[in-house]
């Protein structure tokens, strides 16, 4: 390696392009020598070279830190909780529609169920059949997919929400189904399988269910948040609804 101090500076300039080429690791031997000589002779050049090298080092191989698509989609699906959180805040000071899903579930005979979206529009409608299961179907227009499910008490004493998620063309969808507690925290969650089927145990503290679906490319549909438990009513409205 030559000593740069032996060379007149104007015959031995290094440009930013040179520094970057060396920092990127693809300069030829002569260029590397020239740049390193310049760096030894000047802290300014050395500082620039060190900075570019550090930046390149930090970028190099960073694709390996990319999480799996499943992990990413699931994390993004958590954003649905923000909707629920906001919806709860919005509903706090408004008249809350008397939607007693649990009560309706528990009534005997065939009755039409209304399961409201957070904005108050009907989402679920279904019949309770003689087997004791509540059959529910919702077409989530805004979200662009259909949820079919039933609430079934099983032999083990656990009541589960069992069903499927399909796109409008009836193809199965991958989705994450989450139960949220009263604080909007994730109480339990599961994924649909390859056929779009799912089963999730309904816990006592579950207040809302979130359906966050995504297609094979990982593109997320708008999440759907539905209430599971009786909404709190202002005392006067609660009396009226009795």
């Amino acid at each position, binding site marked *: 390696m030559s000593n740069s101090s032996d060379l007149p500076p104007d015959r*031995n300039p290094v440009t930013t392009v040179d520094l970057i080429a060396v*920092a*990127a690791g693809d300069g030829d031997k002569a260029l590397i020598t020239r740049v390193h000589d310049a760096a030894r002779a000047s802290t300014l050049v050395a500082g620039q070279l060190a900075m570019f090298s550090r*930046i390149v080092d930090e970028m*190099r191989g960073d694709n390996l*830190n990319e999480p799996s698509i*499943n992990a990413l989609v699931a*994390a993004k699906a958590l*954003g649905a909780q*923000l909707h629920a959180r906001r919806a709860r805040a919005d509903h706090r000071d408004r008249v809350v529609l008397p939607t007693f899903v649990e009560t309706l579930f528990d009534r005997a005979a065939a009755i039409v169920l209304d399961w409201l979206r957070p904005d108050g529009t009907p989402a679920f409608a279904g019949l309770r059949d003689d087997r004791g299961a509540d059959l529910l179907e919702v077409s989530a227009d805004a979200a662009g997919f259909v949820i079919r499910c039933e609430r079934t008490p099983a032999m083990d004493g656990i009541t589960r929400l069992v069903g499927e998620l399909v796109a409008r063309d009836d193809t199965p969808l991958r989705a994450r189904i989450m139960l949220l507690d009263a604080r909007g925290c994730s109480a339990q969650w599961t994924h649909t399988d390859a056929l779009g089927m799912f089963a999730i145990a309904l816990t006592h503290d579950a207040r809302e269910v979130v359906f966050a679906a995504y297609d094979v490319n990982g593109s997320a549909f708008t999440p759907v948040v539905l209430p599971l438990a009786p909404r709190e009513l202002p005392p006067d409205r609660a009396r009226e609804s009795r």
Partner: protein
Amino acid sequence: MASNDGDLRLFERCRAGDSAAWDTLVDRYRRLVWSVILKQRMRDGDAEDVFQQVFTALIEHIDSIRDEDGLASWLVVTTKRACWRATARLRRDERNMHSLDSRISDDPRATEHVDQHASHGDAESAETEQLLERQLVRLGLERLGGKCRALLEALFGAGSDPNYALISQRLDIRVGSIGPTRARCLEKLALQLRRLGFGPSLPAEAQARFADRDAPFDASDPE
């Protein structure tokens, strides 16, 4: 970490129920969280669980986090703790599998390695610094955006020996232009990063020269 108004705005939007802002937040920090998980050598399924736990913790604390500038550090610490807890749980499960006495699950020694991890002060600190520096570069790239970001990620993201022909085709850049474009983009990125607090500040003279990429550096530059 440097000030980052982007996070502040995203937090405000998240608190207002904007899930698109949440997506951006997840995208911004996904690699930081995942890299911490990888360093802790979590298995695939466990890694996904931890990833989920960390972002669940973030969303649960979104109303209470006030130091948005420290989010990267918070995520690193939260992820490490989640990994340690998961590892402790796995070890307990393994012990339970091999032990006739299920009470071992309550044995405080089951979490002793957590304390061991936590006690590696200096090494932990250096590792965290490196993680945060890399996150700063990601943030710089995000702010750079456009073709420059795409080119730099394509050239360096995969590791060594980038395929210039493929990059040329994908980004619609002539192979001969990749080198000069890379230099311009790296300069822009360096400027972004300096604004974010990356590396030591340079003298004004150097910054002025730095802005003109064809200006030669004089090897006998006075210090």
